[in-house]
Structure formats: C-alpha cells, structure tokens
C-alpha cells in the first residue's frame, strides 16, 4: 500500500512545487534598493519599479458624479459608510493621523467610519501595494500618492477627480475656503494631461532647501548663506578639505535634488504642456556641469543611498558645510546638531539661484488621493479630506509632521509652534527658517506630475551618477539620451489621445 501511496504523494509534491513560487530561490531584495528607493525619502517623489506602461483610455468624464450628483448623495449615521485609508506615516505624524481618525469617527455627523492602515515601507512599496490591490479589485478608498502616481492610477480611472466634490454646494468648499489654501499647493495636484481635474488633495508639502553650517560659513568669511549658484560653488570648494574628509556639499543622488538644481538654473523637468521632458535644456546642462565640477574638484561628497540620512550625521559632525535636502528634516537636524560633539549655529535657506531675482523652488509632497468606490464612499472620503484640512487640524498636522501647513490661516500657528519648540531654543536661525519656508511657496515648481515619472527619475539618477559623480561621458549627449528615453516613457503612459 505504502509503495503505491508514496509515488502519489511525491507526484503531488511535484505539482505543488510546480505551481508554487520560486521566490525563496533568491535572497530577499534589500529593504530599499538604491535604484528603486528614494535616496532621500523625506518627501521626494518615490522612485518605484517601472509601472506597467500601457497606453490607456482616458477615464470617462462621467465616472464621478457631477456637482449636482454629489449634492444628491446622502450619508447618515443610520447607515454608516466605511472607508479604508492607507498611509505610511511614522512617528508623531502617524500618531496624529491615527488620533485624528479616532476623533473623526466619533464626531462626524455623516456616520463615516474610517479604518486606517499603516503600510510599512517606502512610497515605492505603497505604490506597488496599491497597484496590486487595484488589480485585485480592492484598492483602499484613500491613500497617499505622489502626483505622478495619482496620474498613473487615473489612467484607468482608479483615482477619481475631486473637482465635483470641491465644487459641491452641499459638501464642497466656499470660495473663501479655497482662497485660504496656498494656490500653488492646489495647482500641484493637477496634471495638464487631465485638464480641469484634481487628482489628490494636498496635505503634506515641503521644499528642497539648503542646510547651512553658519559658524563654518563665518570662518570662511561669508556673513550669509550663498544666494547665487556661483557663490555656492565657491564656498563649497573653499570649505572642502578632502584630506580631513571635510567637504562643501553632501550630495544624496536623489533626483529631487537634481531637479531643484535645474529649477534654480531657470529650467524645467517637464515642459509646461506635459508633452515632453525638458531637463536636457541649457539649465539642465549647467546643473549637471556644476555638479560635475563639484565632484571633480572634490568639493562634494556623495552619500551612498544605503547610508540613510548619512548627510545629517556628517552635517552634525561638521564634515559638510552644505546639505541639499527636504525642509521636513528640520527637527532631525536640530536633534542631531544638539547631540553633536560641538554644537554650532545652522539653518536652512532657499537653494541658491542663477538669478536670485527670479527664484524657483522645488516643492513636493505626497497628496491624498481618493479611489473609485461607491458614490457614498467617494463622498465620505472627500469629507474626511476636507475635515483633515480644516485650519486647526492642518496646523496641528504641520506641527506633528514637520510639513508646511497647506492653508494660509494655519501657517501662523505652525510657525509659532516651531518658534516656541524647546528643540530649537539654541538654534533660533533654524526656527526662523521654518517661517521663511512659507515665503518660498510663491516660487514653487512641480517636477513632473505625469504617469511614468518614477522610471524617468531612475534615468536621471543614472545620468547624474555616470556623468557628474563618475565623470564619464558628455553632459549634453547623456542628457539628450535620457530625455529621449524619458519621452518614450511619457508617451507610453499618456492618456490616449493626449
């Protein structure tokens, strides 16, 4: 009997193996592969694995209820509406958002019940998870998404256009409320490929800024941080002392840093009409040339992507004069400098510009997008977003998360909270920097809110690495080639007919 059973069992095992995954054959991927992970994950749009690139039909405009349709929907406590919210916040931001959900669930008059789930991992991981959930027909109702990711979801109509909800007489925003938002933040969730649509709601924004060691700067004879790119380069090289492992600039090869440089040189990452990439312009060439010179002259040091936040450690240890990074790092820089062997005066400033009279600042941040659901779920999701961005809530959120408050009326509260935070007691210049951050909003620019920007970031990152850091190849030729490939990706991911 056994003789008969054993081969059957063995054969079944073979079939099971044949149907099973080969996954364990390979060691698991590093937690954050340098090529797919944000080198500086504070806020920069997370590069992710290339999204399936298929030309897709533009979503039917009737999919979201028209304004009158939205007004016709009724939510009531008698019939609770359940929605699911995926995020990847951690620390104080996570605590705040979870406590807000708890409060919202208890107090909202519409019977909305929000379930909140933290997705451990990077923005890229969240993006993959959402795509898998979409494939399986079970996306969340709300999720954090960068503008380019929201555009990708929108290609198949998985993310909805929020404009009917914003304009709703019953559930929407008044003109005064809309005016209270910084216009740039609202604009940043629009994509020229989907005219008139709002694909996400801004909750979190920060800027690419330059962290500066003020004491060191004084030693170099400079009374204030550099305002022009020329001053920046000179100071970076003056500060560098490679023999003692001291450098002018700590460079994380995060493409938002390169984009910030392109903006500072007066260029764009994507053309205004979103028809083609534009980082091979003169501004792009000048940006890459500047970086190349900084590395060639040993004025900059690259922070490997595996060395997460290594630039903060080196800044605190006074090994680097400047760091290009997100403004969200402010509390972390404060903590690290306070704990350093020799604390020093520091701050962050607007990134130096080619023409300081016409500054352009890279401002970025994931928004909250609403996914297709029942009309009630879509409305409930909007009402949750609306409640979260009420001035008093968004002010507290800005304090907890370190992001900018997205509403003008909330900004003073956030600025005051940072000013009075004991963390900055010894760093008054840093506390003032947070207030000045809001002045930068008027000069804000978005990198590329189009689907397929993630693989393009990888292309750009490779060019910077090869040409500027390793010193190989011709600047213009490398940028042209990258733009040609990027335009292919853009074309593949554009809505049909665009």
């Amino acid at each position, binding site marked *: 009997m056994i003789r008969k059973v054993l081969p059957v069992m063995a054969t079944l095992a073979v079939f099971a193996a044949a149907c099973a995954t080969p*996954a364990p054959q390979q060691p698991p991927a590093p937690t954050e592969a340098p090529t797919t992970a944000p080198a500086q994950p504070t806020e920069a749009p997370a590069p992710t694995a290339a999204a399936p690139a298929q030309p897709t039909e533009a979503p039917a405009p009737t999919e979201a209820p028209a304004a009158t349709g939205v007004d016709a929907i009724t939510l009531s406590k008698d019939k609770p509406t359940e929605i699911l919210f995926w995020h990847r916040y951690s620390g104080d931001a996570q605590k705040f958002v979870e406590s807000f959900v708890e409060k919202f669930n208890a107090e909202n008059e519409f019977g909305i019940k929000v379930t909140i789930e933290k997705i451990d*991992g990077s923005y890229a991981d969240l993006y993959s998870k959402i795509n898998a959930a979409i494939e399986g027909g079970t996306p969340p109702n709300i999720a954090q998404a960068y503008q380019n990711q929201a555009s990708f979801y929108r290609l198949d109509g998985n993310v909805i256009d929020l404009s009917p909800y914003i304009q709703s007489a019953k559930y929407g925003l008044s003109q005064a409320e809309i005016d209270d938002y910084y216009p740039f933040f609202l604009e940043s969730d629009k994509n020229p490929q989907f005219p008139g649509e709002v694909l996400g709601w801004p909750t979190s924004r920060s800027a690419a800024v330059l962290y500066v060691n003020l004491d060191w700067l004084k030693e170099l004879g400079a009374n204030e941080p550099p305002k022009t790119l020329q001053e920046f380069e000179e100071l970076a090289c003056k500060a560098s002392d490679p023999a003692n492992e001291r450098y002018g600039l700590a460079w994380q090869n995060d493409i938002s840093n390169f984009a910030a440089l392109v903006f500072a040189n007066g260029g764009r990452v994507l053309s205004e009409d979103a028809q083609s990439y534009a980082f091979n312009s003169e501004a792009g060439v000048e940006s890459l040339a500047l970086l190349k010179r900084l590395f060639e002259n040993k004025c900059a040091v690259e922070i490997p992507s595996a060395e997460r936040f290594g630039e903060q450690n080196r800044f605190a240890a006074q090994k680097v004069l400047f760091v290009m990074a997100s403004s969200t790092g402010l509390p972390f820089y404060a903590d690290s400098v306070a704990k350093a062997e020799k604390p020093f005066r520091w701050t962050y400033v607007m990134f130096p510009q080619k023409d300081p009279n016409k500054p352009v600042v890279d401002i970025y941040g994931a928004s909250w997008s609403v996914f297709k659901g029942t009309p009630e779920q879509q409305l409930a999701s909007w009402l949750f977003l609306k409640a979260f961005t009420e001035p008093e809530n968004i002010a507290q959120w800005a304090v907890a998360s370190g992001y900018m408050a997205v509403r003008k009326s909330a900004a003073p509260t956030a600025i005051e909270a940072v000013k009075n935070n004991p963390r900055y007691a010894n760093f008054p210049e840093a506390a003032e920097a947070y207030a000045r951050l809001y002045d930068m909003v008027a000069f804000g620019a978005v990198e590329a809110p189009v689907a397929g920007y993630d693989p393009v970031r990888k292309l750009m990152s490779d060019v910077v690495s090869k040409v500027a850091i390793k010193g190989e190849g011709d600047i213009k030729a490398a940028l042209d080639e990258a733009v040609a490939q990027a335009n292919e990706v853009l074309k593949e991911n554009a809505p049909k007919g665009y």
Partner: protein
Amino acid sequence: MATATSIPLSRAGRRAPPQIKLNLARTIIYLILIVVGVASVIPFVWMLLTSVKDYGDVMSLRFWPWPPLGNSTPRFDNFAEAIRLIGVDRDTGLPMFFRHILNTLLVTGIIVASSVGTSVLAAYAFAQLQFPAKGVLFILVLVTFMIPEELVLVPRAVMMNKNYLNWYNTIPAMVAPFLANAFGIFLIRQFFLQVPRELYDAARIDGAGHLRYLTSIMIPLAKPAIVTLALLEFIWTWNEFRWIQLVTASSNMRTVSVGLVGFLQTDGGAQTQLAMAVAVMVVLPIVVLYLFTQRYFTEGITTTGLKG
C-alpha cells in the same frame, strides 16, 4: 647511557607540524579571501557597535566611543527604547516587536516544515522512481525555478484577494506561495542521485518499501542537504519582505522584516542607533541558527554541488 640520551626525540615521540606550502598564487588567494572576509564583516560589526552607541556618538561619527578611546558607556537600553518606539499591539497588549517575532516564527516554521517535506518527497520521486512524463515534470519544476519573482508577485497577490481565495491578511496568504519550492526539490534530488542504487537493492532484499527506504536510509544520508535547505528556507522566509507587505493589512499581522522596514522608513531623518538596535534583534536569530548548523550547511553545500 650516553647512547640512550642521544636518540633524537623529535622523530620518536612527536609528530612533525604540517607544512603549509605557500606559493605566490596561494598567497594571493588568501589575501583576496581575507579582504573579502573583512569587507563582509565590517557592516555587521558597524551595525553591532552602532546599536549600543549614544545618539551623540553616532552624530560625531565616533567608531569606538567607549574606553579606552572615549568616555561613553554602551547604551544597551537602545534595544528597549527601539522596542518601545515600534509600539504596542492593541489587540494583545504585546509590544509590536514581539508580536512580529511571533508571527515570523509561525510563518517561518510552517514554510520550513512544509517546504522541506515536499522537497524530500518530490526529490525522492525524481531520483528514485520511474513514472510517466518524469522528465517533463522535472523540467516544469525547473521552469518555476527560473521565473522572476516580480512576474508572479502581483498575480499571486490578486489571488489572495477577496474576489478569489479571500485569504488577504491571513496566515495562509503569507505562507501559501512558499509551501513547496523547486529549488529544494532540485537540491535534494541532486543529493539523492549520489546514493548508490545498490543501497536500494539491499534494502529491498531486507523487505523495505519506498517509505522505509526513504525514512531510514535516504533521509539520514541526506541530512546535510536537508539541513542546508531548511536553513536557507529559514533565512529566506525570515527576511521576506515584499510578499508579506503585499498581503497583510494590519501591523499586527506582519513579520519582523516588514516591521524593520517600517521602522527604518521615517520621513526626514532617523536615529541610526535605534534603527541598528532593531536590525541586530532581527538578524540575531539567523546568526545563532547558522552558528549551530554551520557544519551541516558547509557539508550540504559541498556534497550537493550548490554554489552561492
């Protein structure tokens, strides 16, 4: 008398020390191995040292901040602080880190047991039995071995969804794809093929059937290969991130590697010493297990022709 004391003792009572002939090629190989070995160990040492450093020492980039080179004291409380920061599982009241450990042990235990069991049975069939389409089936097994994980990740995740198996956020979803594994079948089969056929004939003469032959003779003989497979499965499962992240919804269903990534993925900055403390706690079980099974592992690698 004089003659007795003059006998050279070295030849009579001692074994001459083995002579290692060092030539240039061998020296270069050893040097390369030493360099590679040291390079492999440095990150691990750095992780261990950082995990017990003070935040200030991390910021000051001090490699050894303790006596005799510095005045700091080792901060073993970093481990407790990291566990505290990871949070608490609201359902059980357990620190979330321990909940993650328990989940990982459960998932790893199921996968290792199942994968080893199915691999041994299938390998035996391929090595020892004759049945129709054996060659084709084996090729099919090898084909699954060659499909990149990325290709099957999303379809598999979709299968776990409520529209299909409805296993999302459950232990079955976490383990299902790994219960049988082509690599394991291949590895054990290679070992089984080396066992002389005469052993089977002798066992048959003694009245043993397939199951008795497998359990009493083949499995004991294949112990190094089986332990190697179990260890590799343990490491892979312990470190598995993407799949678990995809098919779980709540934090208290996740495993240590997902928890670790969640802890590391902060916005704006990180306390490196706490991150390293968590990393040490996550890696430690694998290191301990490897130390205990190193002998079998090495033997398994050499006898099956497996190369890393």
